[in-house]
C-alpha cells in the first residue's frame, strides 16, 4: 500500500505543473527570441571589446541565477528541516543540478569572455574564483543528497549543508575578493562603466528574464521526474513486502 501521506502534495503539484507547462514553455521560447534579438542584433558592440562583449548577456544572468539557485536550496532546506514539507526535498534534488549547470555556464562564458582580454582562459579573477567555489558547493550538495541508500537521509543532510553553505557564501566571497586584491590588480570586467547604458540594460534584462523562465521550466520538469522516481522506489518497497 503506497503511502498516501506522501502522495497528497506531489499529486497536486503534478496537476499544477501540467497546467502551467505549455504556457511556460511558450513564454520561455518567446522571451529567448526577443532577448537574443536584443542581445545579438540590437545592442551595440563595445568600443573596446568588440563583439565578444555579447557573451556578457549569458554570463551575467547565469551568475545571478546560480546564486539565486543556491539561495533557493537554502530556503528549501529550511522548509524541509523545520516544516518537513515533503515536496521541498524533491524540488531541491531537481534544482541543484540546474543551479550547478548555470554556475558552470557562468564559468565557461566568463573564461571565453576573458580570453581576448587576458590572453589566457583563466586568471583567477575574484568573481570567477568565487563562482568556482559556488560550483563546488553545488557539487557537494548533489553528491551528499545521493550518497545514502535512504533518500530521506540524503535529502536532510543536503538541507543542512545548503543552510551552512548559504551562510558561508558571503564570507567566501569576501575572502576571495580580499585575496584577489592582495595578489593582483582587479581585472576589468565591468558592465559598461559607472552607469549601465540603457542599450545594454534592455537585452541584459530580457536575457535574464528568459534564463529565469528556463530555470523554472527545467526545475518543474526535473521535479516531476524526481516525484516519479520516489513513487517508483516506494512501489518497489511495497512490492517487496507483499511478496
Amino acid at each position: 500500500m503506497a503511502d498516501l501521506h506522501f502522495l497528497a502534495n506531489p499529486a497536486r503539484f503534478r496537476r499544477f505543473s501540467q497546467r502551467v507547462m505549455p504556457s511556460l514553455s511558450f513564454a520561455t521560447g518567446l522571451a529567448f527570441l526577443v532577448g537574443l534579438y536584443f542581445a545579438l542584433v540590437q545592442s551595440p558592440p563595445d568600443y573596446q571589446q568588440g563583439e565578444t562583449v555579447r557573451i556578457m548577456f549569458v554570463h551575467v544572468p547565469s551568475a545571478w541565477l546560480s546564486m539565486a539557485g543556491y539561495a533557493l536550496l537554502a530556503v528549501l532546506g529550511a522548509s524541509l528541516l523545520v516544516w518537513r514539507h515533503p515536496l521541498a526535498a524533491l524540488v531541491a534534488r531537481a534544482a541543484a543540478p540546474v543551479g550547478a549547470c548555470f554556475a558552470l555556464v557562468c564559468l565557461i562564458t566568463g573564461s571565453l569572455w576573458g580570453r581576448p582580454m587576458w590572453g589566457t582562459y583563466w586568471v583567477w579573477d575574484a568573481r570567477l574564483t568565487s563562482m568556482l567555489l559556488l560550483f563546488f558547493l553545488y557539487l557537494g550538495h548533489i553528491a551528499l543528497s545521493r550518497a545514502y541508500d535512504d533518500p530521506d537521509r540524503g535529502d536532510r543532510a543536503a538541507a543542512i549543508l545548503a543552510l551552512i553553505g548559504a551562510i558561508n557564501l558571503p564570507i567566501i566571497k569576501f575572502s576571495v575578493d580580499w585575496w584577489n586584491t592582495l595578489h593582483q590588480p582587479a581585472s576589468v570586467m565591468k558592465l559598461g562603466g559607472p552607469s549601465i547604458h540603457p542599450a545594454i540594460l534592455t537585452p541584459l534584462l530580457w536575457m535574464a528574464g528568459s534564463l529565469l523562465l528556463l530555470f523554472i521550466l527545467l526545475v518543474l520538469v526535473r521535479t516531476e521526474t524526481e516525484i516519479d522516481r520516489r513513487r517508483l522506489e516506494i512501489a518497489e518497497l511495497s512490492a517487496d513486502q507483499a511478496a
Partner: protein
Amino acid sequence: MAPPILDVSDLACRRGGRRVFDRLSFTLGAGELLALTGRNGSGKTTLLRALALLVRPDAGTVRWQGADVMAEPETWRGRLAWLGHLEGLKGDLSVRENLLVAERLRGAAPPADRLDGALAAFDLSGLAVRPVRTLSAGQSRRVALARVALSQAPLWLLDEPLNALDAPAQAAFRAVLQKHLAAGGLAIAATHADLGIAARSLELQA
C-alpha cells in the same frame, strides 16, 4: 494493576517509506515489565528507538506521569537507560572505566561502592581492569547490562538483553531486573527468548 506511569497512545512510525507500526497504544505502571515480541523486522527495535526519541514518531504521544515527553526531551532522556544491539562500550577502555564514563556522560558521579556492586551483580569484579576489546561477546554484554543497572534510571529500554548470555549470566540479569522492578522501576524489553519473569506482552506484526 499499578496506575500507569508510561502512557503510549496511537504511536506510528514510518521507515524508508513504509509504515512499521501504526496506532500502537499501551500503558505501563511501576514495577511492570513489558515484553515486545514479534518476528524479525516487525518493528521492535524501531518502537524502542521511537520511545527513546531517537527516531521521531510520525504520530501519537508518549506520556510520563501525564506529561508529554516530547515537550521536554532532555528530561526524558535522563529517565532512560538504553541497551541496544551494540554494546555501547569503548574497546580500549577497561570495564570499570567504561562504566564510570557512561555514568559521567549521563551527568552522574556514582560512588565507588555502587560501581563495585554493579560489577559484582554480573560477576565482573575479576574483569574490572581488562580492556573491553579483550572480552568475549557474552562478557561485554554483561558489562553493557551492568551499565544499565548502574544508571538507576526509572525506565529501562532493552533490545534483546539475553543475547549471547550463558545460563548464569541470564540468572544474574533476571535478579537485577527483578530488583529494579521491585523498587518501582519500569522496563520494556524486545526479546525472542522467554525472559523468565512475569511480564505483560505486546506482539508486533510485521
